[in-house]
């Protein structure tokens, strides 16, 4: 090994350390303060640095990479095998191909979080590789990866049973009722699921999901045009921790769905829910904190007002706006409690109340 003595101050007998031998934890500490590009540069400085970074680096984002992301991933992941968080979102043109994701599956067995959003060129091979190689995944974003099909998604769900957060927005071919049944069967830990614009999802998929994933906290069904009240009723009945529900443009939804939410709230007030793990969280009895029913044109003001009255965290007032009803001409009279108070007592009360 060549020692690092390129341009030391001449005859400084005091010097004992040299940068080449910088202890791993110090190098990683310094690299935690620079950008990911600089981390990669540093890994190319010498074998000591490469090995230290390979051993210690747990989080990397290559989203800044404008071209050649595919080759970069393929060359880096064999060195960075301890990665737990990898962000490969492509903000511009899609670059990633299956070969890169296969490399991730082959080398990064510790991976917990992976963002592949907007990887339009990936095929099922990628999901198979992740299923085989990354069983610890708990957070996966494949939104916009439109080429995946439901058999690959089912396979992934079967392999990655720790999934807690799954973003499938726009994966219209992958997200079928069959795939959701696989998710519900294997991923019982799931807490957050985005099914936005997966237009082939029907009540069958969502009801099975509700039955299999009782820990769901956030569910985005925006643009799932086939679903009806049955889906919402199942979610309301089976998922006591639900905090966020997006039903944008689900135009089959009627008042019945709204009243099922109200009823679930009544049940939780009366302590009918099992007192299971998770209910000890501080704000666990807050109930719904976000509800988007914009463009759900069949809803009436009475039903939505009942929902709003049942969940104190839902607001229509400007600052907080967590009950979104835009585009529903029949709902303009719906008001959250503080808006009504403000109307009665002037704005001072609103400011007081809105901490």
């Amino acid at each position, binding site marked *: *090994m*060549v*020692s*690092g*003595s*390129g*341009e*030391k*101050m001449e005859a*400084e007998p*005091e*010097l*004992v*350390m*040299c*940068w*080449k031998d*910088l*202890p791993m*934890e*110090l190098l990683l*500490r*310094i*690299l935690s*303060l*620079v950008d990911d*590009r*600089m981390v*990669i*540069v*540093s890994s*190319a*400085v*010498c*074998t*000591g*640095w490469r090995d230290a970074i390979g051993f210690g680096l747990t989080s990397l984002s290559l989203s800044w990479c404008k071209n050649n992301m595919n*080759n*970069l991933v393929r*060359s880096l992941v064999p060195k960075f095998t301890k990665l737990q968080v990898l962000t490969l979102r492509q903000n511009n043109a899609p670059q990633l191909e299956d070969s890169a994701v296969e490399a991730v599956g082959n080398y990064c067995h510790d991976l917990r979080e992976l963002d592949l959003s907007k990887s339009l060129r990936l095929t099922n091979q990628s999901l198979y590789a992740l299923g085989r190689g990354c069983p610890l995944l708990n957070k996966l974003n494949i939104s916009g990866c439109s080429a995946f099909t439901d058999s690959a998604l089912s396979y992934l769900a079967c392999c990655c049973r720790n999934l807690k957060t799954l973003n499938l927005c726009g994966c219209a071919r992958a997200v079928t009722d069959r795939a959701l049944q696989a998710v519900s069967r294997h991923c019982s830990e799931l807490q957050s699921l985005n099914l936005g614009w997966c237009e082939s999802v029907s009540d069958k998929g969502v009801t099975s999901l509700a039955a299999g994933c009782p820990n769901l906290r956030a569910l985005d069904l925006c643009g799932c045009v086939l679903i009806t009240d049955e889906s919402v009723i199942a979610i309301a009945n089976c998922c006591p921790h639900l905090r966020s529900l997006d039903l944008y443009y689900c135009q089959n939804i009627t008042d019945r769905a709204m009243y099922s939410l109200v009823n679930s709230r009544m049940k939780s007030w009366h302590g009918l829910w099992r007192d299971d793990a998770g209910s000890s969280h501080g704000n666990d009895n807050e109930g719904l904190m976000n509800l988007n029913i914009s463009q759900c044109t069949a809803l009436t003001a009475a039903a939505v007002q009942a929902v709003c009255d049942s969940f104190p965290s839902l607001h229509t007032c400007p600052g907080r706006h967590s009950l979104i009803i835009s585009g529903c001409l029949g709902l303009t009279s719906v008001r959250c409690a503080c808006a009504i108070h403000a109307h009665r007592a002037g704005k001072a009360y609103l400011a007081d109340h809105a901490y």
Partner: protein
Amino acid sequence: MSEGTKEPDGGEEKVVLKTHDGQEFTVDMATANQSGTLKNLLSEVGSSSNNPQVIPLPSSITSRVLGKVVEYCQRHAAGGGRRGGMQALEQFDEELVELDKDMLLDVTYAAAFLDVPRLLDLTSQAVADAIKNMSVEEVRHYFGVVSDFTEEEEKVIRSECPWAFE
């Protein structure tokens, strides 16, 4: 610098830090306690003004380096309440880490060894700022590190990440 010695009120505890090159730094407990390592050690062995504990330091912490660390610890033991408040303290910190790169390395190492978290933050940030936007060659040159990759490896790296060398 006298801010670290305070008024010697007879019984104030002292501790002696002895570097490998034989220099001794006598500091008060408030200064020593800025270092997690010394604090732990002294809570075990104790020290007094009549018979101060002598703590030998590893060879990597030279007297020049220890001087910097002690300067930092004395100033911070006095805190932001004196000498112009927090603003002056921040300026002191800024100037303290204006060091040449070899000294910066040694102080970083000493701060890590002695567990002086804020000083370690300062020096780490100074190094991070120095190498920001550098290429591989610039980093090697800056730190005096010679590549020990084989020719083959070096070639592969250059072809994989050509931008890292630009």
